[in-house]
């Protein structure tokens, strides 16, 4: 059951948020609501405006129009940033620091006390699997290790809202599982996670809701569980399909396509299938094969965004 949006239960709220660089429109009109305590997946093709949108929500980029509220305050306010964690897509920091020193610097930027940091840092380094490397300089870290360290600094202040921009980039399967576990643990703690990832499997495994962005606009926002369990694509091989029957079928289903002696279409749930079959039999259609298939997130992504969305 989707919550009714209100300023108190929204972690992120953007209204017609837009950014133009010269003549290039990076984000057209982003309207989005992310609820507190949920894991939200932000999906879209390359160049759709995902990174720019995240940067506007974090106050790194000033929008040219619209507004963004983060945890109830205008995006970028210093008091809000105290409650936010952010893992950039390519986390970089001064390479001469050791892993532990790096977290200490970030902790001090959060205004955390030395005793608090002394308690938090070992646990976090352990959680991301870097405790044995705590005294190693960052310059000697692999990309995956750097990503793990970036994740640790994003969690240092026990944030209410965590932005993760491609968190599994450069990580091996064990590292990806670690990220999934951390995201689940953060949700269980009550934090909101805003996840931008190209790996739809990761999104499918961790997110409660997803928003699809295309050409700088959110084109669809849906609950993931209902989406995956509900919508079904149906392929039918049949004979004696008259144009009139096809026209009537098109009114009962969505995205109907004909293909030789077959048709494919979407229905909102498996429960709708028997009625469709009864309708076709009633119209004297010769049914040879009916194949229902639940949609994967990738199917949905391609359907909404399009196969060449990023080109």
């Amino acid at each position, binding site marked *: 059951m989707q919550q009714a949006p209100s300023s108190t239960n929204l972690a992120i709220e953007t209204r017609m948020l837009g950014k133009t660089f010269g003549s290039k429109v990076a984000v057209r009109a982003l309207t989005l609501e992310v609820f507190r305590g949920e894991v939200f997946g932000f999906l879209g093709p390359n160049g759709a405006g995902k990174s720019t949108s995240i*940067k506007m929500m974090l106050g*790194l980029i000033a929008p040219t129009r619209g507004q963004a509220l983060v945890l109830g305050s205008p995006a970028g306010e210093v008091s809000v940033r105290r409650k936010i964690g952010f893992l950039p897509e390519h*986390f970089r*920091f001064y390479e001469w620091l050791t892993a532990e020193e790096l977290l200490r610097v970030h902790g*001090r930027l959060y205004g955390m006390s030395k005793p608090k940091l002394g308690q938090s840092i070992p646990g976090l380094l352990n959680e991301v699997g870097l405790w044995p490397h705590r005294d190693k300089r960052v310059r000697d870290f692999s990309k995956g290790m750097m990503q793990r360290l970036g994740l640790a600094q994003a969690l240092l202040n026990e944030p209410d809202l965590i932005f993760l921009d491609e968190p599994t980039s450069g990580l091996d399967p064990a590292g990806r599982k670690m990220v999934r576990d951390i995201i689940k643990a953060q949700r269980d703690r009550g934090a909101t996670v805003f996840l931008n990832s190209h790996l739809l499997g990761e999104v499918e495994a961790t997110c409660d809701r997803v928003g699809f962005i295309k050409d700088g606009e959110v084109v669809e926002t849906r609950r993931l569980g209902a989406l995956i369990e509900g919508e079904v694509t149906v392929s039918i091989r049949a004979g004696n399909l008259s144009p009139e029957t096809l026209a009537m079928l098109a009114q009962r289903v969505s995205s109907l396509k004909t293909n030789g002696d077959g048709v494919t279409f979407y229905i909102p749930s498996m429960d709708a299938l028997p009625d469709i079959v009864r309708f076709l039999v009633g119209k004297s259609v010769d049914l040879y094969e009916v194949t229902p298939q639940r949609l994967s997130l990738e199917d949905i992504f391609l359907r909404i965004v399009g196969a060449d969305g990023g080109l």
Partner: protein
Amino acid sequence: MGTRVMAGVTFREAARKKVLWMAFIAGAGFLAVFGTGMHFQATGLHVSNQAVRHQILNTSVILGLYAGDLLTILMTILIAADTVSGEIVSGTIHAIATKPITRRQILLGKWLGFMGMLTVYIFFLLGGVALLGYVIGGATVEHFWRGLGLVWLESILLLNVTLVCGTAFSTLASGVIVLGMHGVAFLGGWIEQIGAATHTQGAVNVGIVASVLMPSEALWRRAAFEMQSPLASVLNISPLGTFSVPSRIMIVYALIYLLVALGLALRRFRLRDL
């Protein structure tokens, strides 16, 4: 708190830059050459008049300070040119600017870190020259602290201009622009000196305009004037510019220029997209 953290991390970052250590090594080499030269000059100088002897050795020290000043200028520009633009390109700034500190605190912290490092460097280099001049040649520098303060101001002025450029241009472009601006000031300063020596007002005006555009060299010339011996001041016999001495108004102008540059850097950094 944020400013202090950024100042500390910037100081340590600057201290780990190869260019800084190269500058210290070059400075140490420079001091070794200067000390050796001063030794031979002091022992080989057979002048019975002590005032003339002091004048010659003081001029040598001023030349040493001038070379030290040039090294400081280069070091200032090289270590500060990529602190903003480089961190934007690498993405380092994203992890910093999303923390609960203002952009003003970030840039002021960086400024403080570099300022601390430059202060150490100026003490090392120019203090070293003055010390070697005194210990080896017995040469004293007039108004040393006043002169050192002006060189420090020159370095901070260049630091601030470099930070302004860093908020708008790439690292390479910032370095080229600031070096170019100082080049204009340097050339203008010499044209002004020659103009004053030959009583050519047009040439003097060129120098003044160059100093208005970039008052860094004017600060050095005032420092040189302050540090030279009284005899050189009276007789106009120093090779480093006492024919046309930058006025106190020019020093105040440089101070305002320096503060405006810092304000501009803070404003640009606050408003720019990262």
